[in-house]
């Protein structure tokens, strides 16, 4: 067993887990943070994407022990009691998610992108989502929502067409 302490969504958590435990299993099974999804367990689909020290990572490819002492942000840490994160709001408004299973991973990839690049081009958004597979939506409404959220986050006046 290894003991892992991570700062998850702003709160320090500790668990003792078998050494082969992935960060995804730690989050889901030990911390009951089930927002991050297991879609393939080998880093192909991106449904498990979380942000570790500011970078979007596939949590199924990272060992829990590798996350020891680091900051981890999951989908559950995006909203506060007062407000949804603008990306979450935009995803709801544009119906960007259909079955929703890829959603938490996509939203975390989008968050990592907008943290680094507040005004991404469509191509940059496509690049950022390149590791997140979605079978329902064709990504079109995700890209629209991320552009909308980026505008709001930049504190620009927003014009929503349609």
């Amino acid at each position, binding site marked *: 067993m290894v003991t892992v302490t991570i700062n998850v969504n702003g709160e320090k958590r500790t668990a003792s887990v078998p050494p082969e435990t992935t960060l995804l299993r730690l989050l889901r099974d030990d911390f009951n943070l089930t927002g991050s999804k297991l879609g393939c367990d*080998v880093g192909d689909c991106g449904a498990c994407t979380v942000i570790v020290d500011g970078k979007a990572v596939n949590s199924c490819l990272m060992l829990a022990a590798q996350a020891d002492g680091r900051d981890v942000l999951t989908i559950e840490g995006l909203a506060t009691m007062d407000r949804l994160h603008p990306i979450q709001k935009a995803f709801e408004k544009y119906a960007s998610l259909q079955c929703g299973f890829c959603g938490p991973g996509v939203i975390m990839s989008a968050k990592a992108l907008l943290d680094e690049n507040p005004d991404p081009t469509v191509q940059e958004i*496509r690049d950022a*989502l390149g590791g*997140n597979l*979605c079978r*329902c939506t064709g*990504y*079109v*409404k995700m890209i629209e929502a991320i552009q909308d959220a980026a505008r709001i986050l930049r504190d620009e006046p927003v014009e929503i067409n349609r």
Partner: protein
Amino acid sequence: MKRRGRGMACMWYPIGFTVSANPSAAVVKIDEDGTATLLTGTVETGQGSLTVLAQIVAQELGIATDDVQVVSADTDATPMDTGAIASRTTYVTGNAARLAAEKAKEILFEVAAPMLGVKADQLEAKDHKIVVKGYPQRNVHIGDVASHARVVMGQPPIGSASFNPATVPLDPETGQGKPFGTYVYATQIAEVDVDDETGEVEVIRIVASHDCGTPINPMLVEGQVEGGISMGVGFALEEEILFDSQGRQINPNLTNYIIPTSLDMPEVEVDIVDNYDPTGPFGAKGVGEPTLVPTAAAIVNAIYNAVGVRITSLPATAEKVFAAIQAKRDAQPKQITA
């Protein structure tokens, strides 16, 4: 060199099979705050069907989408449904939900008629109110009627109904008959770049013009079309389960079985054709499956237009397209000398 081409494909697709029984049942209950609950045995698998069903019930009752709660997919609690298959939910379950809402509404009308001093058939449900037709100022809030129905009349407004597109077996010899309730139609036009040195195909743009009868929710219709196109792009260019000589799959994973990512998606323009089908709920038919049907054909026709090679087996991988281009090049001098 990259060569640009364009190709079109149109299609038809059936909604509501009738060769065997295809029923859906639904229950609608109206509460004293003027909201309603729909019970349905269908399953939300991502299409947005529960939202569409809520809109259908809301429309029938003259309330808003947000006023309808949907309870679904529990064999103990919800009525029988043939399920989330064959693009049938909007059409078949939608008809059942509308009929159930209509029955609950009839109770409201019976209760409201003496409250408004008119006959039940002079009423309509609109903007959260039961209104005397032609006299919008004579109305009662739907919640007050529902409350009156329960507390005073002892007749809670609940409706249940089922819908089954009439079952008609086909002639076994000739296949003649009416196998489906109705059909939807669509055209997609693709623009592609084909690299004639590698055979690689890039889909630049797809224009999709779909008939779904009345679009109950245009945003969700667009979502279906966009998603169907991504699946169609995969079918056209990338996806294939491969087997070894002993019949075992050799690529059963997402590392080697490639589905479209955000980087593979063309620019998509969705266009909804204005249409109305009298047999569907509020004129609606369906849209789920047809969205992917013409995509591969349009892309392959665009490849034909770009480089003049006819790809006859899917997927049109770069290897396959390049081999076809080479074969065409090899054949050309012979044609000239002949």
